């Protein structure tokens, strides 16, 4: 089985998010970039599914040369090879289009992404690749099992879950529950240096969106403390002052 895992390079989860140039640019100064945590789950499951020589896992990233440490990390975790499409990821549509073009020329049995990237939180790439290639897509899956040419997945819904069967190939966005992220071992790290990383140039495509500016959430006022002996006071404040109960 050939699996493609789409990965993005995102700011570490502990990053304090700030902006420069009059709030038009994300301030990358001092920011550590990592493999998107949801993509790590997709990668871990792909490695499990191809364990024991049962196929291969290719990771693909749309990014400039600065994303290569993250791609090498994915190879160290256990991907077989990697592809980097050499351009900045303009938006979800642009990324999905580039990846879909690659898949047209290099078919896969299963295409996984993380449920969303933790920078723009779009959850769009999986569905867009599906639509571009006329393949089924499922967003936010919690479980993924393959049996022959069919998969069983669990999709998250409000207040529950949905179990689906889907014929391969299809596209899915993985969330917690699908697999535990894997930590690269020394052998993985050593072998990652020599695993194939192919760089290809992007195809031209019209884009439909531009990020204009950023805002940070309005700061809250000073916390109002209530005595631990008097939670009734809290209830009163929530009712009369905050008006939320």
């Amino acid at each position, binding site marked *: 089985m050939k699996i493609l895992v789409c990965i993005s390079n995102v700011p570490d989860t502990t990053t304090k998010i700030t*902006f420069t140039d009059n709030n038009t640019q994300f301030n990358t100064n001092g920011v550590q970039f990592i493999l998107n945590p949801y993509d790590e789950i997709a990668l871990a499951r792909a490695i499990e599914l191809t364990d024991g020589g049962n196929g291969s896992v290719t990771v693909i990233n749309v990014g400039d040369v600065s994303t290569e440490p993250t791609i090498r990390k994915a190879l160290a975790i256990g991907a077989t090879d990697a592809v980097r499409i050499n351009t900045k990821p303009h938006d979800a549509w642009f990324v999905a289009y580039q990846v879909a073009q690659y898949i047209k020329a290099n078919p896969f049995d299963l295409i996984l992404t993380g449920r969303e990237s933790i920078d723009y939180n779009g959850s769009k790439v999986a569905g867009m690749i599906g639509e571009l290639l006329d393949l089924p897509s499922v967003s936010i899956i919690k479980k993924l099992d393959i049996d022959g040419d069919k998969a069983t997945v669990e999709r998250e819904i409000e207040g529950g879950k949905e179990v689906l069967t889907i014929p391969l190939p299809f596209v899915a966005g993985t969330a917690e529950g699908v697999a535990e992220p894997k930590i690269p071992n020394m052998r993985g790290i050593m072998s990652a240096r020599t695993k194939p990383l192919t760089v290809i140039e992007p195809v031209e495509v019209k884009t439909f969106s531009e990020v204009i500016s950023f805002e940070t959430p309005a700061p809250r006022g000073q916390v109002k403390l209530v005595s631990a002996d008097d939670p009734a006071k809290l209830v009163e404040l929530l009712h009369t002052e905050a008006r939320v109960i």
Partner: protein
Amino acid sequence: MSVLIYTENADGKFKKSTFEAVSYARAIADQNKTNLVAISIGDVNKDELASLGKYGAEKVLNVSGAKLKNFVNQAYASIIAEAAKKQGADIVVLSNSFSGRGLAPRLGVKLEAGVIDGAVALPDQTGGKFRVKKTAFSGKAFAVVELTSTNKVISLTPNSYKIVETPSKAEVEDFSAEAKESDFRAMIKEIVRSTDKVSLPDADIVVSGGRGLKGPENWAMIEELADLLGAATACSKPVSDAGWRPHSEHVGQTGIAVSPNLYIAIGISGAIQHLAGVSSSKVIVVINKDADAPFFKVADYGIVGDAFEVVPKLITAIKEYKASA
């Protein structure tokens, strides 16, 4: 050019997040001085469909059929795209629910539309531009995104737009659209929905527990408090990682982002990743025995104290309040 709103239902009933999205779409239609058409797919009765008029829909297109009873994103996307074309709608609005996230990207491709996912405010159309504020960096910030395409798809973050009601009824019209056979390749085997619990992304009030609660056996008081308030329960990442609670309850940067009216955090210190997921909550209450817990810095109300003493007292106080109200 009209605005089309996809109105999601659960077991034949529209949800609060759907009414929010209809109200939001109505406001966009007003900005553009045009009409608002709703589309419902599945098994929803006529009264329920007509009730969408209250939130501003002038007409409701009703699509039903045995194969369409349950949500299949590929088939639903085909039908909604066809309706948008037939109605001459250049803006399609939907809720950024779990299903909405499966639909919006496919609709975007079908309609060659720019997509805003997780909008939190109305579009700013000053100077003929179309700019929408949406969540970014998992709740740590917002991004203002401009769509430059003719067609546009916008999904609205639940709990971010106030429902507007006026006494009027929508005209209901049957609409038939063909989804192709290959749109049904993904087949639903089973739907499991717990009806006695409030769903976390839609909840007005969320009661959330952290590692300070010491173990899963201590969640009874969290659930009791949530039940009393009609709230959903949630937890921090270490709690779901330890298997004390399901992953679906994990709120934070790598879990679910919520924006309830009231978020009550009990025994959660407030790591930056957790705060990202709750920063859009309107009011935050923190109960923690450590007065230096970072969560107090972003809270509106706080109690410094042992959860095992404070929460039972709080439960009693709420019972008394409810009895007197």
